[in-house]
């Protein structure tokens, strides 16, 4: 290696906060830019080894506890897998009572992530000379900023909906094969509608700075620019402020990534419902799919495989489908090659990013199609997609609350509990979530979970291809390696949640037999 190149090159390791869980990023800097990146999940919980051998319904209790912020999504996936295994057909009320809690979880998560975790970087001293810095401090300073205080207040109100429907949040287990355990009364449904309406009003006033209808009219980049210029209220909302800050900080120029998008889809629309998905379709609120460029292919769970070549697990060749997955932790050996407790999931052999932006792209949202076509995926577009996702959720939720028939059933007993396997796939707040479950003799034989952050934060696969945010980091300029705020923007634009990197051992307490 030429001497000059060695001199310009520097490796830094960055432990990252304001993500859920333990994450360290190692990057190689050359001439002030990231030349290469390694994402290392630094926590191994081995949570599902305890599921193996347990009662067939235990996933409903244990898996929501994989993640404190998206437990409702885990519960949804666990219940869907068990619906399949038991042959259950939940009544429409049961389906809606599940959907409404899941979508409420998205509302709180999108807002809490943006206001408490992503925007806090705008307060960073790196932006002290930025004209918008003092305003950013007023809004987003940890524990004090106006937007922080309000976001905590409003999100805790809206998730009362989940408590009414499901007993509590976080960590409810009210979804069961065949529907839900709860039977909400008319008045409780009315209160849910009221809580939703209040939250929507606040969201429109403080975040959008306009009505949801006005925002939904934006179809292109040109429309977006015109919207920002249209009124003071648009520029003053947290969304408008984010757009203005993002321009100053050039957030649209960093965090590009592979350009592959994966979405498992969510919320099957029950027969007779007036809710419609993208393009007026009546099957689900958000379709599943894999997108690259203009092409969108339907999602097929058979195409999912996990690699471990660079993960601290015993090696196997290539990738394995989750129904056949093995996970044996292996903390030493292969030094230098293995670097993460996260496995590397791939779709049809390719890495893919997942989350609200992937939902927008797979759903064919014209604004986000246009933004990605012009500037590629990037930090700005990713966070924008998250911040405006609620716009499309409100009308569907309002309609579904109106469609719940409190005098009808919320639960239909499943016809059987027998051996079999099932897949439960949905969108968690930060992207595609899948549970692959095998039941034998009334007990769990295998339980594999692939979380959104397993996709986004994956290490390299057996072909040496980087994971999505590793790829997105490459090319990012870092002004001050002691305070690499730019790296934080890139990672947090994926809404990283590292507690999600959980793995299955083959048998209970299998580690005792595994030599480390």
């Amino acid at each position, binding site marked *: 290696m030429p001497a000059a190149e060695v001199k310009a090159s520097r490796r830094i390791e960055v*432990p990252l906060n304001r993500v859920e869980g333990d994450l360290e990023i190692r990057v190689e800097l050359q001439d002030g830019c990231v030349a290469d990146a390694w994402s290392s999940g630094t926590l191994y919980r081995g949570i599902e080894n305890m599921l193996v051998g347990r009662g067939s319904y235990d996933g409903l209790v244990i898996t929501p506890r994989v993640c404190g912020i998206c*437990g409702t999504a885990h519960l949804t996936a666990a219940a869907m897998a068990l619906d399949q295994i038991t042959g259950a057909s939940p009544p429409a009320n049961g389906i809606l009572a599940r959907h409404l809690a899941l979508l409420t979880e998205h509302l709180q998560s999108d807002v809490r992530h943006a206001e408490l975790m992503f925007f806090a970087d705008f307060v960073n001293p790196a932006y002290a000379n930025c004209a918008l810095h003092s305003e950013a401090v007023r809004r987003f300073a940890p524990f004090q900023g106006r937007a922080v205080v309000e976001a905590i207040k409003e999100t805790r109100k809206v998730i009362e909906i989940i408590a009414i*429907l499901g007993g509590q949040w976080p960590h409810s287990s*009210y979804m069961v094969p065949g529907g839900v355990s709860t039977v909400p009364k008319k008045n409780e449904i009315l209160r849910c509608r009221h809580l939703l309406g209040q939250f929507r009003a606040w969201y429109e006033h403080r975040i959008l700075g306009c009505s949801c209808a006005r925002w939904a009219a934006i179809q292109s980049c040109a429309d977006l620019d015109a919207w920002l210029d249209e009124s003071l209220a648009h520029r003053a909302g947290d969304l408008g402020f984010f757009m203005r800050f993002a321009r100053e900080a050039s957030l649209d120029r960093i965090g590009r990534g592979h350009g592959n998008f994966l979405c498992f889809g969510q919320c099957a629309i029950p027969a007779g419902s007036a809710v419609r998905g993208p393009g007026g379709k009546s099957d689900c609120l958000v379709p599943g799919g894999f997108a690259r460029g203009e092409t969108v292919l339907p999602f097929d769970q058979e195409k999912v495989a996990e690699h471990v070549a660079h993960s601290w697990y015993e090696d196997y060749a290539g990738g394995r489908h989750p129904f056949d997955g093995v996970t044996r932790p292996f903390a030493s050996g292969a030094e230098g090659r293995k670097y993460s407790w996260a496995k590397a999931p791939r779709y049809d052999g390719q890495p893919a990013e997942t989350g609200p932006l992937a939902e927008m792209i797979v759903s064919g949202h014209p604004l986000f199609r246009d933004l990605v076509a012009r500037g590629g995926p990037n930090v700005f577009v990713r966070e924008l997609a998250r911040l405006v996702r609620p716009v499309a959720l409100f009308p569907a939720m309002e309609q579904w609350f109106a469609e719940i028939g409190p005098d009808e059933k919320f639960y239909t007993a499943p016809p059987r509990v027998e051996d079999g396997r099932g897949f439960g796939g949905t969108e968690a707040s930060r992207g595609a979530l899948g549970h692959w479950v095998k039941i034998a003799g009334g007990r769990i034989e295998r339980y594999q979970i692939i979380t959104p952050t397993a996709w986004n934060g994956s290490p390299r696969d057996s072909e040496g291809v980087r994971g999505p945010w590793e790829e997105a980091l490459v090319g990012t300029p870092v002004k001050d390696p002691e305070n690499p705020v730019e790296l934080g923007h890139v990672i947090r634009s994926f809404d990283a949640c590292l507690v999600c990197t959980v793995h299955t051992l083959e048998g209970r307490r299998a580690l005792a037999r595994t030599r480390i």
Partner: protein
Amino acid sequence: MTVNLYWMQCGGCGGDTMSLLNADAPDLLDALAALDVRVLWHPSLSSASPAQHIELIECILGEELPLDIFCVEGAVVRGPTGTGLFETFAGRPKKDLVARLASKARFVVAVGTCASFGGISADCAAEACGLQFLKWEKGGFLGRDFAARSGLPVVNLPGCPCHPDVVTGTLMALVQGAQVALDAYNTPSEWYGMLVHQGCTRNEYHEYRVEERDFGEKGCLFFHMGCQGPLAHGPCNKLLWNRRNSKTRAGTPCFGCTRPGFPQEEPFFQTPNIEELPLVLPEGVDRAHYMAYKGMAAAAAPQRLKDRRTEV
């Protein structure tokens, strides 16, 4: 006087923090402001750079900065084979940092069942344990004789997650110098000296032994559905969750998530029975008397309960 608080997340799910954000009257920020608590660090909420964070830790360890309250969320990860490499911070086992910070703190608070007793992680390959307990057994990571500088052992606030009012209430008591009475598992008896069963809207169904065998009904969940309300200590049905509801009110059995043994080995959603009576009876109850009492209670059950006409 300003009170310094450091919050660490270990082997857990972050759910106790998410739950804490749901606190109300006072909410988290109001409570911190009223008590003049300065949060030196919280992994989900702080904005200091990684370099500043490491400097902060060094200041605490060097006793240049007093650490008044050290909150730990999540279990201490000791695996594999005692190395702690399943969870690292800046390349070193995080458990070592837990021990060093605990030795400097005036109060150490275990927030949630994982930090208190090991919880879910304790059954896994992570070889995780609670700060001063491993399941029912005293000792845990810091050892049975550990005492924080105040003289108090680790204050355990179990629950999966811990109820937010219990966290803010404990912080208020500690900061204001109130006596915090602890029970055998070092949990404040104010909240853990009661059972989840107390305040459940299905209590009358329980009383007359009108029981359910499937979901979506109004009767008691204790006899067949695996509810641990009469065994688990906690204020769920007094304080309610998110000010609205509780699992048992919503027809979901209590899973006993505050208990040191959580999660139980037996399948959830079922109650192991002997002669149609639960194998494990409500806390402190004598079997022979209970059989006689419940037999008579069932015979005395009014028709409105048998018909499930009484709302819950």
